[in-house]
């Protein structure tokens, strides 16, 4: 394929370099670049340049032209960098001074091309591509390009600025890499072993960072901080400590200034510093700076800082405790008793009195708490009990319950009906379920959660979060009167919610029931409650919901309920449930206009089949499911049907209650009987039809199953083929099999004729030409399953999306003069 492409390359280069041609869209150029990258990584780059002189010609002609399109120029810059990534190639480029021509920034400035962000970005990317060896660094430093890169660091384009930062970090890293320092010990070594121009390059970059940090210009400070954090996370010593020493003073100024808009970036810098050896050396003041960011908890910004510090992974413990104390303040403040008033600082009080800041502070407080709970953080100064009570109180306030004694009546009015705080609070409450110490609060917790589930004002998203919290609390610690709670308190609310006007609520409710049933699988009391409470019949009626998503969730819920009940098949109500479920599900599979419910039905069957209890009860429906699912117009239903077929095959062929049991019979007979059973189920029709489907994943799955089947038939020597004959006429897959069969026969016949062999068995077979019935093992042989499988693992567009195809497209677009007006959807 590559040789094909290489032969097309000169023509493609000509087209691209022609300023009269409009350039191909940028996806084509990027794909072309990807191909070069791959080619370059596979072979010696020098070979490519030497054998393809058209590349150098292309690059030089693009650079000479004053009318080059920015897209082509950008592509050329990137390509040049890529091709100059080895010293030999760089040498080839350098011979005619081409490299300087390409990266000479002034040249583009003349014709305004530099104004185009894609050119600036291509220029940077080109250098980044090239920077793989010493000479490249020498080229950058020697031609004063560092200065340009530093300018681009403050570019008006976000992408260019970001790329410039990456390149600068790469340069710094490269300067200190072992191959640059003449093999001397890098860590702790001075820069003396580096070439003087490189030393000056690194100090130029570092000075720029210091300068940016001391600047009064906000965007420049931000860019400086971004570069600093990149250096800290990507570079090693001695760069880190050298730079840190220089930036420490301006950094301290920035930290102490406490500007709101810099907090996030400053914390990112300090977070990066935490991961470096700087942390362990007190003179570098990393911890001190973080502490300074928090202040004494009396600044407006300290809460934001605290929220960020709480989330830091490598944060020193003392600092984390301090941040935790600060970030929990808003939560405690809103929900504490009046006697604690004097402890509350003025700033916080003021913040809580304004609605926007009150909500944002409480959300920060709650999400930080949830974050801490995820790591099961051990609170010291404050009990988890009182924190949880605060969360509960807050949630009550949100739903309009005014506590008897309230410190911040303002905050209360801000909170009523506030969905944001409700969602966040419920997430936090769920997260707190990891603390066993607060199990005694369970009654209160479920009380609040039930209130939310019952409240007619609860938003759909709030209800979803409530369900998640309920589930977490039920699963974490089953309690003695759990069943009582479920059947008396929870189920009535759920039944009501399943009739909610909003499909989102009905769906979340059904999903919750499914999860609950799965979690309490095997709990006979729960199963009984499902039946006696009338929940099952509500579930069954949800199968006819108007919304497809809800029907699918109802199918899953009913499926789970059937599985749960299957453990107690003795109950009459349980078998009735299965019968009813089967009728309705089959109706969905055959008639539902949406894919989700149909997919859910097949998945339910698969999960039933995986469990061993239901198998005999399902036998009658299985062939219908396989045939309906296999001919569905949604290929994902077909995929799920094939998964069902796979489980069916496994269950039948391995030792399980459903395996063909014929005591005394040989293994071969049992296998034959299993195959006959498959045939009766219509499993082979499903597999062969799917093999020739137009959707790749379906074919791939079917092919894999057929290969498995082929292996089994090949292993079983004495198969009675006469019992396993399939009719190949009158169906789609049969025609294809017959066509291949005939082709093979013809090929064999012609071989026989040329060899002069006649009268052999094969010869007799050849005479059959068209046949109606072929045995399964024969079909499996006729089909080149291995070949098919190999093809199917490739993307379905691998041919049209190949590099050769790309080049042909570029060429044909150039010949095709008539322009199609691009039509955006």
């Amino acid at each position, binding site marked *: 394929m590559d040789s094909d492409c290489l032969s097309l390359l000169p023509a493609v280069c000509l087209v691209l370099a022609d300023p009269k041609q409009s350039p191909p869209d940028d996806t084509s150029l990027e794909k072309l670049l990807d191909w070069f990258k791959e080619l370059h990584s596979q072979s010696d780059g020098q070979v490519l340049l030497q054998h393809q002189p058209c590349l150098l010609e292309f690059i030089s002609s693009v650079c000479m032209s004053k009318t080059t399109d920015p897209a082509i120029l950008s592509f050329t810059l990137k390509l040049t960098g890529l091709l100059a990534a080895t010293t030999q190639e760089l040498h080839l480029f350098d011979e005619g001074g081409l490299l300087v021509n390409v990266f000479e920034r002034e040249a583009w400035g003349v014709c305004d091309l530099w104004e185009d962000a894609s050119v600036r970005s291509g220029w940077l990317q080109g250098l980044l591509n090239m920077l793989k060896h010493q000479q490249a660094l020498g080229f950058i430093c020697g031609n004063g390009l560092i200065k340009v890169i530093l300018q681009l660091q403050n570019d*008006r384009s976000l992408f260019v600025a970001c790329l410039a930062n990456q390149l600068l970090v790469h340069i710094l890293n490269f300067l200190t890499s072992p191959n640059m320092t003449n093999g001397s010990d890098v860590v702790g070594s001075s820069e003396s072993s580096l070439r003087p121009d490189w030393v000056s390059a690194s100090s130029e970059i570092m000075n720029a960072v210091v300068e940016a940090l001391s600047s009064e210009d906000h965007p420049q400070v931000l860019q400086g901080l971004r570069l600093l954090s990149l250096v800290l996370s990507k570079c090693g010593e001695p760069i880190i400590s050298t730079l840190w020493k220089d930036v420490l003073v301006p950094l301290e100024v920035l930290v102490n200034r406490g500007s709101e808009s810099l907090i996030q970036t400053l914390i990112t810098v300090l977070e990066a510093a935490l991961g470096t050896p700087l942390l362990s050396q007190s003179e570098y003041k990393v911890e001190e700076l973080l502490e300074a960011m928090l202040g004494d908890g009396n600044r407006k910004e300290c809460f934001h800082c605290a929220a960020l510090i709480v989330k830091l992974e490598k944060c020193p413990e003392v600092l984390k405790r301090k941040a935790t104390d600060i970030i929990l303040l808003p939560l405690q403040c809103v929900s504490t008793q009046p006697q604690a008033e004097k402890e509350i600082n003025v700033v916080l009080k003021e913040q809580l009195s304004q609605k926007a800041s009150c909500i944002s502070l409480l959300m920060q407080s709650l999400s930080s708490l949830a974050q801490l709970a995820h790591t099961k953080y051990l609170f010291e100064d404050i009990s988890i009990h009182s924190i949880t009570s605060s969360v509960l109180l807050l949630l009550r306030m949100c739903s309009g319950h005014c506590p008897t004694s309230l410190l911040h009546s303002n905050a209360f009015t801000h909170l009523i009906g506030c969905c944001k705080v409700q969602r966040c609070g419920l997430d936090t409450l769920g997260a707190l379920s990891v603390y066993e110490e607060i199990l005694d609060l369970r009654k209160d917790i479920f009380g609040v959660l039930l209130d939310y589930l019952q409240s007619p004002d609860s938003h759909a998203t709030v209800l979803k979060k409530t369900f998640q919290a309920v589930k977490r609390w039920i699963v974490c610690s089953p309690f003695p009167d759990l069943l009582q709670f479920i059947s008396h308190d929870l189920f009535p609310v759920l039944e009501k919610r399943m009739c909610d006007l909003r499909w989102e609520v009905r*769906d979340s409710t059904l999903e919750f029931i499914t999860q609950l049933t799965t979690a309490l699988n095997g709990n006979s009391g729960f199963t009984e409650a499902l039946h006696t409470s009338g929940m099952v019949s509500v579930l069954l009626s949800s199968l006819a919901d108007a919304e497809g998503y809800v029907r699918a969730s109802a199918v899953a819920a009913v499926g789970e309920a059937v599985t749960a009940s299957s453990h107690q098949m003795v109950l009459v109500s349980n078998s009735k449930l299965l019968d009813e479920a089967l009728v309705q599900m089959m109706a969905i599979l055959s008639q539902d206009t949406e894919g*989700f419910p149909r997919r859910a039905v097949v998945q339910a069957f698969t999960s039933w089949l995986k469990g061993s209890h239901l198998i005999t009860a399902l036998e009658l429906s299985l062939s219908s499911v396989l045939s309906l699912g296999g001919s569905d117009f949604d290929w994902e239903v077909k995929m799920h049907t094939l998964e069902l077929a796979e489980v069916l095959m496994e269950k039948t062929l391995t030792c399980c209650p459903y395996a063909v049991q014929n005591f005394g019979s040989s293994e071969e007979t049992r296998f034959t009987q299993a195959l006959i059973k498959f045939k009766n189920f219509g499993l082979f029709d499903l597999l062969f039809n799917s093999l020739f489907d137009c959707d790749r994943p379906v074919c791939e799955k079917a092919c894999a199953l057929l290969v498995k089947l082929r292996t089994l038939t090949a292993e079983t020597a004495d198969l009675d083929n006469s019992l396993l004959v399939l009719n190949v006429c009158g169906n789609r897959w049969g025609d294809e099999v017959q066509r291949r069969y005939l082709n093979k026969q013809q090929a064999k016949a012609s071989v026989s004729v040329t060899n002069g062999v006649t009268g052999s068995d094969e010869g007799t077979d050849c005479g059959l030409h068209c046949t109606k019935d072929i045995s399964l093992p024969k079909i499996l042989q006729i089909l080149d399953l291995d070949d098919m499988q190999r093809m199917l693992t490739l993307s*379905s567009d691998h041919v*049209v999306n190949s590099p050769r195809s790309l080049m042909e497209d570029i060429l044909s677009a150039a010949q095709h003069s008539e322009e199609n007006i691009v039509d955006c*959807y």
Partner: protein
Amino acid sequence: MFPFHSDFRQDAAGKAFVFSKTGQFSDFSYITQNGRLTEFLDCVIISHFHLDHCGALPYMSEMVGYDGPIYMTHPTKAICPILLEDFRKITVDKKGETNFFTSQMIKDCMKKVVPLNLHQTVQVDEELEIKAYYAGHVLGAAMVQIKVGSESVVYTGDYNMTPDRHLGAAWIDKCRPDLLISESTYATTIRDSKRCRERDFLKKVHETVERGGKVLIPVFALGRAQELCILLETFWERMNLKAPIYFSTGLTEKANHYYKLFITWTNQKIRKTFVQRNMFEFKHIKAFDRSYADNPGPMVVFATPGMLHAGQSLLIFKKWAGNEKNMVIMPGYCVQGTVGHKILNGQKKLEMEGRATLDVKLQVEYMSFSAHADAKGIMQLIRMAEPRNMLLVHGEAKKMEFLKDKIEQEFSISCYMPANGETTSIVTNPSVPVDISLNLLKREMALGGPLPDAKRPRTMHGTLIMKDNSLRLVSPEQALKELGLSEHQLRFTCRVQLHDPHSDNDTLGRIYTHLKSVLKTYSIQHVPDGTVIVESIVIKVTSSAEEPNLKVILLSWSYQDEELGSFLSTLLKKGLPS
């Protein structure tokens, strides 16, 4: 706040590619690096259901973790998941992509969506409010006004200023936003009449069917497809044609259901005919089964996907490509790396799997039916909304430049066209309402001048008190009284040295005389305690015992007499007349 546009990789011209080379989504790390999008964005607004506007939404909300509100109109909320599902299936089908959003994610994402009604103001939070306007383009498409305090931005999404076969024209009131962000797909084009294109389309389909050929129209699951369906349905009815028309995907049934449901969003004509029959209940268009592709005789088939890169449409294309009687009509853009792209480029031999080639003998037609505003339409919208600034997106740079000049000339407003990733700063003049005390107003009135008039701004002096989220302008005296503060006088002082061989008192006398002659209209006093006073300016003279001829003149004045004070100090520096 984050108005969505073009999720997928964009080319330099800003055109969005739904199926990009890598299929990758937008890099949200440019918004925030730690992925906590919810803290950075107040809400997400989706203007309409096309994938270059909503394709990354489940990725953003379920994989990156944005948990805030998402707004879209009712029809968009209903139709969006169909397209996302289609997009997901096609991507997974093609590559077996595993790191892609799932059906469950699409559903969970849609559960977070808050539906918008047209012209209804929705309060996102304390400060932010949004309002949707009809945008034409596709069913449910909306332009959105986003307002914080007195400042506002209108984001058009894609819109169409001329009604088409099933949708009306975009409309907005004179909301005078600080900024209007408009798409500019057809920035310089004045499009030919859509009627002509439609006639052309019908003629081509009709001719092919008449000569017994088959017509394949690859489409995305919805949008354009519905429009073409109405077109063919009406034509078939009128001409009494018998050739079958099929729609190959089951998805469309649901789509048509929504078109029926949201009939109020369509144009007047469709709404009117609804009394007799629903335009989206097609009599001639039936569901397609794969086996029909081999049926003899003419037929028209709409099949997905639209770029002929996988699935049904490609399968049918392969079957029909060899017959010159057949025709394929591409109604949309095709990205490189698809069969659609190749045949639009005029390639007649396509390489298939296993080095096999497919001869393309059937006719290939390209027809654009896209519903975007053209240059005229964009100007019309500006006239409607009267923005103070304009920002063009979603177009080609060169064409946008032309339109930008035109807009700046005709409307005398600034027009911007930032490239992807570029920041544009716009100066706004937010009007902040302030209460004025009656006393201050009366005093101002007493000074004379015209009566207050809303159209004639006037400067007023007073003290602004910002307290409890309210702003009041009162007289300085009242402010002092209200706030319990005492007044402080601010005085400027200055020393001027000059040689004068007289006594201090005489020097002062000479200064007095000099000033009397210079400042004739001012009242100048020579006070016996050794000072000269001009208005609020106090002048004293001192000298040292060592150098009695070197006089230091001390000037002091209040803020109100700043000008006079400076004048006097300059005057005295020049010395006294002898």
